């Protein structure tokens, strides 16, 4: 479908290109570009989750039989489960911006959003992208309506992060008509009530392949509900296969190509995970802001204390940066889709989009899960002792948040993936990281030049963003020069993670700035005051973090004269005006408190 508002001017940006290109504000998608239909999708989802799901949270947390299934059926009837499924198979075939909005709304209850992700995300996408026509016709309409509940079964007791070490095996039966599965799976979301299991297993010892296993298959059994720290409303179980026969036609995609299925699916899952987290941060801001006005201490409302306002402001600032990145990425995916020539297979093209923006998807996952963990932690703090009590929803939100840094690739794994993927693109010539880094080296050796301020209202911020990218080029260049192929080795992970942090913050900084500039061009600079304060406060801290990470990297990979030169360059790139982040945060806090909500929605 084409609800995208992507205008012709939105050129298709390559994945990862944010480090080497400087798009104009009008080239990026921002939440202010969300159209009426997309807003209606958010509205329906929000009404559904708040009217139907939230009142049943108690039942869901205690796994009252039938409640979750009933809600999934209702969600199915509204179309909420079929976002990734093309219309011809009974889905809604949503564009990325719409599905981002949908995911955000579902975050009002973590137990539901995780269930949704397991079913409509990673449990559906393998079939959408890799299924045969028969498989798609057979399963997708029923998944969209929740007649079948699906799940994604990759992890095993001995193979989590190292998923390719999975041991479950599939052997062709003697008559050649069935695959016989043996092995165990672990941590399977929706395990308890799923009807369809997308299972990864090895054929001939090492060929990872994917199979569609239906409930009731002999020799296949589902373990007991795991006792989890949070997202208790979702089901998580182990699975066991003992000579479980699966019809031959239930092989998904090709033998030995299962890892392609698995990883492409995770690219999509990771992007959505960031969207759920963004919604979670916004809900946390709402409850925390309200409570800060209800509770008094020392004769004042909590909301009057600077340290409480600082927390509320910081939650909103991180949400702003995350949101700016996520919608920018979603807009890039939609623009990529819109650029498909007529006659292109849309599904195949979408898969290419997911691959193209895998870096941005990992960033969404890491940044989103860490923003949410920060927000729920501060949320608990604002609630004080009551925040530590299960009667208050922030306690649950705190527990529910924690899983996001672990599943769909831990944040450690994703941090390394971000750099691995960037390096691969640099080596393959897709991204001109190497020539840019060389040019920067020349610039550094030529010594400082006097930079004329452009006099533009955002000149200082533009310089900070440009410098953030230079710092990435400087540090990654230095690291590659020193370590070369060894960069991927376990003993250099600290360097890689630091580079990853620089790249993520650079993307967040630029996306925030471009969004404010686009809003200022549209509405006048006087009308973006608070948003601009949020952006400035974010840039102020991000620039500090980047400098810190850069010193860490350079200290580890350079020495002698080289180190001195590079440190001097870093100092140059880290120069900035003093700024007053306390005042900026106060401004943002006032905006949060005025409406007890995240103040930049749809702006």
């Amino acid at each position, binding site marked *: *479908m084409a*609800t995208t508002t992507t205008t012709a001017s939105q050129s298709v940006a390559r994945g990862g290109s944010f480090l080497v290109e400087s798009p104009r504000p009008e080239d990026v998608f921002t939440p202010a570009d969300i159209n*009426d*239909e997309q*807003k*209606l*999708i958010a*509205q*329906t989802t929000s*009404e*559904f989750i708040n009217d139907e799901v939230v009142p049943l949270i108690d039942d869901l947390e205690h796994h009252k039989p039938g409640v979750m299934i009933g809600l999934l059926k209702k969600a199915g*009837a*509204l*179309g*909420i489960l*079929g*976002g990734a499924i093309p*219309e011809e198979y009974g889905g*809604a075939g*949503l564009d990325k911006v719409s599905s981002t909005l949908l995911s955000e709304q579902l975050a009002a209850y973590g137990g539901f959003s995780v269930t949704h992700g397991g079913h409509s995300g990673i449990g559906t996408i393998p079939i959408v992208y890799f299924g045969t026509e028969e498989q798609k016709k057979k399963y997708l309409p029923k998944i969209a309506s929740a007649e079948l509940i699906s799940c994604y079964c990759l992890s095993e007791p001995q193979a989590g992060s190292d998923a390719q070490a999975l041991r479950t095996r599939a052997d062709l039966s003697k008559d050649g008509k069935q695959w016989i599965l043996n092995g165990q799976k672990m941590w399977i979301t929706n395990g308890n009530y799923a009807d369809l299991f997308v299972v990864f297993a090895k054929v001939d010892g090492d060929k990872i392949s994917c199979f569609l296993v239906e409930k009731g298959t002999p020799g296949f059994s589902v373990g007991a509900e795991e006792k989890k720290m949070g997202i208790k409303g979702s089901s998580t179980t182990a699975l066991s296969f003992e000579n479980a026969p699966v019809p031959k036609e239930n092989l998904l995609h090709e033998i030995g190509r299962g890892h392609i299925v698995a990883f492409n699916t995770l690219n999509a899952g990771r992007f959505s995970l960031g969207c759920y987290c963004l919604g979670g941060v916004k809900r946390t801001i709402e409850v925390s802001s309200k409570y800060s006005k209800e509770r008094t201490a020392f004769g004042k409302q909590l909301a009057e204390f600077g340290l409480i306002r600082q927390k509320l402001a910081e939650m909103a600032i991180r949400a702003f940066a995350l949101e700016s990145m996520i919608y920018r990425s979603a807009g890039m995916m939609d623009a990529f889709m819109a650029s498909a020539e007529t006659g292109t297979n849309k599904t195949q093209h979408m898969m290419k989009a997911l691959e193209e923006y895998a870096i941005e998807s990992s960033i969404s996952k890491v940044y989103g899960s860490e923003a949410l963990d920060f927000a729920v932690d501060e949320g608990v703090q604002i609630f004080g002792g009551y925040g530590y009590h299960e009667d208050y929803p922030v306690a649950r939100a705190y527990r529910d948040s924690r899983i996001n840094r672990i599943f769909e690739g831990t944040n450690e794994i994703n941090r390394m993936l971000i750099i691995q993927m960037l390096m691969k693109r640099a080596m393959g010539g897709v991204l001109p990281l190497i020539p840019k880094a060389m040019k920067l080296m020349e610039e550094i050796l030529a010594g400082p030049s006097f930079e004329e301020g452009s006099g533009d209202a955002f000149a200082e911020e533009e310089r900070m963003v440009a410098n953030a990218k230079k710092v990435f080029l400087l540090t990654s260049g230095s690291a590659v020069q020193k370590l070369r192929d060894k960069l991927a080795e376990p003993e250099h992970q600290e360097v890689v993670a630091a580079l990853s942090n620089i790249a993520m913050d650079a993307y967040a900084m630029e996306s925030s700035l471009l969004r404010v500039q686009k809003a200022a061009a549209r*509405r006048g600079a006087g*009308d973006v005051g608070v948003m601009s304060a949020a952006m400035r406060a974010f840039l102020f801290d991000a620039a500090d973090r980047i400098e810190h990470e850069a010193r860490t990297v350079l200290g580890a990979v350079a020495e002698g004269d080289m180190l001195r030169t590079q440190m001097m360059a870093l100092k140059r790139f880290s120069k900035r005006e003093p700024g007053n982040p306390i005042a900026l945060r106060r401004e943002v806090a006032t905006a949060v408190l*005025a*409406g*007890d*909500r995240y*103040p930049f*929605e*749809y*702006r």
Partner: protein
Amino acid sequence: MNIVVCVKQVPAKDAPLAIPEGAAWIRETDIGFELNEPDGYALEEALRLKEKHGGEVVAVSMGPERSKQAIKEALAKGAERGVHISDDKFYELDPLGSARCLAAAIKREKFDLVLTGLQSDDHGFGQTGVLLAELLGLPHATIIMQIDAADGRLKLKRELEAGWFQWVELPLPAVLSIQSGINKPRYATLKGIMAAKKKEIATLTRAELGVTVSPTQRIERIYVPKKTKKTEILTGTAKEAAAKLVEKLKHEARVL
């Protein structure tokens, strides 16, 4: 049965409202807008009547460009067509002015029934529907709790004070103001939202409608009520305090 339903877009209930210095209306930038809640019930009632009796539902809304969203919501929920009376200054209109514009647009339609909400969540005049009926020269009834339509007539349950109800009968065509809570409005399904993109929204201006309005009423100023709270403890014995209280109720509060 062809039904016209009037849907208004109003500031979102939880929107933080700001009033510019000396202005007669709120600052509209930075706040969200939504379908006037009472109109959601009128829309649902219209859709149910259509589903029962056939015909079409046309959603009419007046306001700036953004108010098309209210029409789109109606279309997504099942209305067939939309009419947008494009008017950036509609908030300056008094209820009679609004009703004149709506009436002029509605007269261009072939309809059997016009439904409005009981009132709008922003201005809360509670008169537009009634005035509309008058301008269309049609019978009307307000605070409708139930609609039974048969043989070109309506049997209507109205809510009165203190838990009383009243049944009235009207011939069609007619104008009804629907009481909130009469039904449970449906969700717009994602399919409905997609389908709505293909539905027609006609745009009309005041000039095209040939309506000139000279306001009979004008909003001078809007402001947030000043919270004044003065607590006074009456001292003395209970008897003395009671006497002082009576005194105050008589002469200060003037409620006795």
